[in-house]
């Protein structure tokens, strides 16, 4: 079936199978930042925005985004890079495989929450697993990023 949606601010018209998930459909059209780390919707690696909210693209049938707005990290490179530099300055990207999904969630959180507490940050980001860093460095980077962008 054919779907029309807005991908990273551009009109996009693609053919998808009825059982095709958004993650696979996006990778097929070159959104190679989309990575998958589980088969069970629990790692957060494939996070993208549907409208303005982070969603797991591995679990959303592609046809569901018909008429909607999808944003991947390819569409928010300037802001993603701003945070990625802070993350890398902490050494907290490590293998980087979970980073695009993590960054999409962090950027969404920044839009959504005003001056979040540590607890609120951890709660918001709880769905993004990381096996390398032990999360501490990610937290330091998130707090620095929120500070830097607040002023």
């Amino acid at each position, binding site marked *: 079936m054919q779907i029309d949606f807005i991908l990273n601010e551009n009109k996009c018209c693609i053919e998808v199978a009825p059982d095709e998930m958004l993650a696979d459909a996006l990778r097929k059209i070159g959104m190679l930042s989309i990575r998958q780390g589980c088969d069970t919707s629990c790692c957060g690696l494939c996070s993208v925005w549907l409208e303005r909210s982070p969603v797991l693209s591995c679990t959303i049938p592609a046809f569901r985004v018909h008429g909607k707005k999808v944003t991947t990290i390819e569409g928010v490179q300037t802001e993603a890079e701003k945070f990625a530099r802070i993350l890398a300055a*902490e050494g907290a990207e490590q293998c980087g495989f979970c980073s695009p999904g993590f960054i999409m969630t962090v950027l969404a959180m920044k839009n959504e929450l005003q001056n979040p507490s540590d607890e609120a940050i951890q709660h918001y980001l709880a769905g993004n697993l990381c096996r390398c860093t032990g999360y501490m460095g990610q937290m330091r980077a998130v707090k620095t990023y929120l500070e830097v962008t607040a002023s």
Partner: protein
Amino acid sequence: MKWVGKSVPKIDGVAIATGKPLYTEDMVVSGTLTVKLLRSPHAFARIKTIDTVAARALPGVECILTYQDVPKVRFTTAGQSFPEPSPYDRLILDEWVRYVGDEVAIVAAVDEKTAIAAMNLIRVEYEVLEPVLDLATAIDHVSIVHPEHDVHCNVPIGLDKNRNIASAYTVEHGDIEGELAQCDVVVEETYRTQAQAQAMMETFRTFTQLDHAGRLVVISSTQIPFHVRRQLARALQIPSTRIRVIKPRIGGGFGAKQTGVAEMYAAIVTLKTGKPAKIVYGRKETFIASNSRHATELTVRMGATRDGIIRVIDIQGLSDTGAYGEHAPTVFFVIGDKTLPLYNKTKAVRFGGHAVYTNKQPGGALRGYGATQGTFVQESTVNKLAEALGMDPIELRLKNLIQEGETSLYYRGKKIGSSSLHRCIARGKELIGWNEKFPRIEKNGKVRAVGMAVTMQGSGIANIDTASAEIRLGDDGNYLLLVGSTDMGTGSDTILLQMAAEVMNTSMDRFAIHAADTDVSPFDPGSYASSTTYVTGMAVKKAAEELRGKIIAAAAQTLAVPATELDFDGDRCYHGPTGSEISVPQIAVNSVVGPNLQQLSGYATFGSPISPPPYMAGFAEVEVDKATGKVILLDYVAVVDCGTVVNPNLARVQTEGGIVQGIGMALFEEVQYDSRGTLQSSSFMTYKIPGRQDIGQIRVEFIESHEPTGPFGAKSIGEVVINTPPPAIAAAVYNAVGVRITDLPITPEKIFMGMQSAQGKPES
């Protein structure tokens, strides 16, 4: 120093974090076949018939391979230098299937859907056999996991396949029983450590194609490109000159990718069809059909004098290598080798036992590699001994631990290198507030307690790990560093550049680095065994020193002055007495333009006869809910001696990440099977790795020592950091509620059951 000791961000950090296409799956070209593997539903069976006719007839199917279609030469997939100590007990496909998930058929089709549909059309008739599912009953079990006649090994490892023994090992110094009889206090305990999954975020994946010369190009998420090349040459029975293995960016490894898991399946499809092929494991496949930490059952006896001098340590037991023997002898060996030397006032030490075959997923390498299991059992026993002696466990350790320049019975007179372990313990004690909190504080029905453990690891494998590095001075006066180590996210490419830039006294952006590609890179075993900083690092340092010497010599010749009178500031060579100078770019041009020249490069190979241990002292503070047995980890303090800290930020994150994996092993993670041998914990829903809300505060400090044999005084950091959480948290739980958990992980159920029993131990 200009670069060593600086928190330089990783050179690839921003690119990988912002989603650039740099990993294996991102390299796949259009027209690539998708490879899927039909896996055994039985823990142990012999294939009677396989009918692939219907599957082959499906449009879009390119290739279906069964055990009848693969070379009959056994090999090992363990990533180890030749001759590998792991048994040659594998074929690409075998008529025997030895665990639930073992490969039965390889299917390649134009897309994933077709491949799966074809897989479902394959009909297999099995002769189902009784599986060996418990390591404790594996030896002399009625079933023999490897009944075939051509299992063999390169080196004697005590393989006795008819008894399901993959490897036997014993080392003994002194008279164990005699010395135990003289000890005032003897404690004994039996422990079980679980199989743990590496659970790196990027699952196994490989992309293969033929190049312009018909050579097999293997792009793979691997820690061991050179070992994979050798494995493929043997498994596929083609010359290694026909194979090129390239490692792009990797999404974590933790040892999982120190075994050649997926490469051979894509490779054989490309060889048979001539077409590009990719294989991408799902998470379930990764959980059930790759490798995990070897489960162990170990009994420790420890004897001491009344005043707390440890005289005897005896560790005996079993390790479960599952269906194949990858890393079986070496992981077992490390259990003793990276624990027993710590306590060097002993008069008798012994370590021994067997790695046994069972019909489970194979064991493999996982950060710590036996030392993690050994640390849990030894440190838990030291904590128990301290209680029996009525002594503070820190005091007991300080009395008994090896110090810089000392040796131990276990190391047969070999002196250990640098150590700040005693200072690490003192600092950690202060940070955690041991004096105020040990053993417990009860307030308002809640109990908080502390526990601690120490550990050591190695830095590379002594006398085996040997790495080479090359640095070329390019025609533009800049440098290219070539290494074969495999940065899997640790930042090793970055820290190796820091070292090279340090020696060349210049900025890091004058360098490019290339790693790792078997056609291009100098030989390196790959990144495992905590080897990269120490072994590859030293090779890089020596290569840089050689190049620096050549640059100065070339300048001396051009300027017609003695080399000893030249100063090299990274940009130029300057002769003080005459004021003459020549720039590095000019030296570069002089070495590449004109007749009778030789381009300047430094090339060095380094292997060490020793493996200097890094150390860590770990301290846990927990809160235990007495009504439910639930443990909350409030605080974890780590004080680490990795020698010189080459990059403080990267070392810190390595430490934090390793601790959290250790916390996972301590509290949550366990590879579990049902009674028929089917792995149950096959997703992140059933195999819990720590999330960000599961851990409390983690505090890391370094106390540097200076390792004279390491680059700039450095040792290793990668593995040592995972070892302390299981024993430290177990000790804290014991101090909180008096329940001694000897069977990991430490679950609320076990604690609760232990609190109900008079022995303070859950019924097993």
